């Protein structure tokens, strides 16, 4: 189990580039799990009738994707404390996404009491055309020893 330690995280550190292929199986799994059956998220005919080229990913699925970018890097002992996500351009089934992340801040507020520190990470999700689809700011709590 690879777990990042708060002490060794540097502000400005870049997360590994994450490339994500949104197969129909994955896009269809999201409504099955969340029960968000708004047809835009699973019905191509409905999506086209509403002016979209195809099925549009739900906000919840995008939140899961950006969380994973951060927790894959930080490790499974991570507690996601806060996530802000701005939706700038629709993400569609079959899109390929490129996710990047940068550490923006560290906070030692709970380090002495809980041996856990807070880290803030900005995540950007772009599609194959290079369009910024969503931008997230995620604050996590991870173990530390200082």
């Amino acid at each position, binding site marked *: *189990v690879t777990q990042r330690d708060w002490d060794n995280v540097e502000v400005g550190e870049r997360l590994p580039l994450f490339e*994500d292929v949104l197969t129909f*199986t*994955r*896009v269809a*799994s*999201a409504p*099955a*799990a*969340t*029960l*968000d*059956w*708004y*047809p835009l998220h699973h*019905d191509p*005919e*409905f999506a086209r*009738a*509403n*002016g979209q080229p195809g099925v549009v990913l739900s*906000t*919840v*699925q995008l*939140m*899961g*994707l950006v*969380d*994973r970018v951060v*927790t*894959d890097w930080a490790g*499974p*002992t991570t*507690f*996601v*404390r*806060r*996530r*802000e*996500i*701005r*939706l700038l351009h629709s993400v569609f089934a079959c899109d390929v996404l490129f996710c990047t992340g940068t550490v923006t801040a560290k906070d030692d507020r709970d380090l002495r009491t809980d041996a856990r520190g807070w880290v803030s990470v900005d995540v950007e999700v772009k599609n194959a055309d290079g369009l910024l689809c969503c931008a997230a700011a995620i604050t996590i709590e991870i173990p530390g020893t200082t």
Partner: protein
Amino acid sequence: MSGNGLATYKPTVGSYEDAVSYIERPDFERRGDVEVNWTTIRIFCVAVEDGNLSYWDSAFADSQWGGIIAPPAMLMAWVARLPWAPDGEASAPVPLTLTVPLPGTAIVNISNVTEYFAQLHIGDHVTANDVIESISPLKRTAAGDGHFVTTRSVYTRQDGTVVAVERNTLLRYIPREALA
């Protein structure tokens, strides 16, 4: 034919003046049909391709969190209703932002800020209480003219612990092509 009970997603049409009276009107409560459970967690992890041991490995999760936890993004799943019931009364309530009377007939989600205070474990039951926090005056956007509607949702576990507070902003707009 998209037989999906689309009427559920039809916004109430009205004026901004009518809508403002909905701000901070209390207690739109959502309770789910499914409690926090491992099968649903794993289906969500397939959607996201998330292999986090906290969601997959009970030995790891037991030692770290006292049991398997739910991905934080799944909050909505635990207060959602099934789209069908044996008696035919599919009871998914109309989302609060669609019940607010506004000119906009179309919706697009803009942003979401969620703060988490506790983890959710298998077997937990969650309740959400929603209020409309703010409604912007009419704004001109690329999609069309509309109002930004921010909803505040407080998610509470069965023991009364507030597990998360979510602020979601969406745009209720009149599509440009509808004006042409």
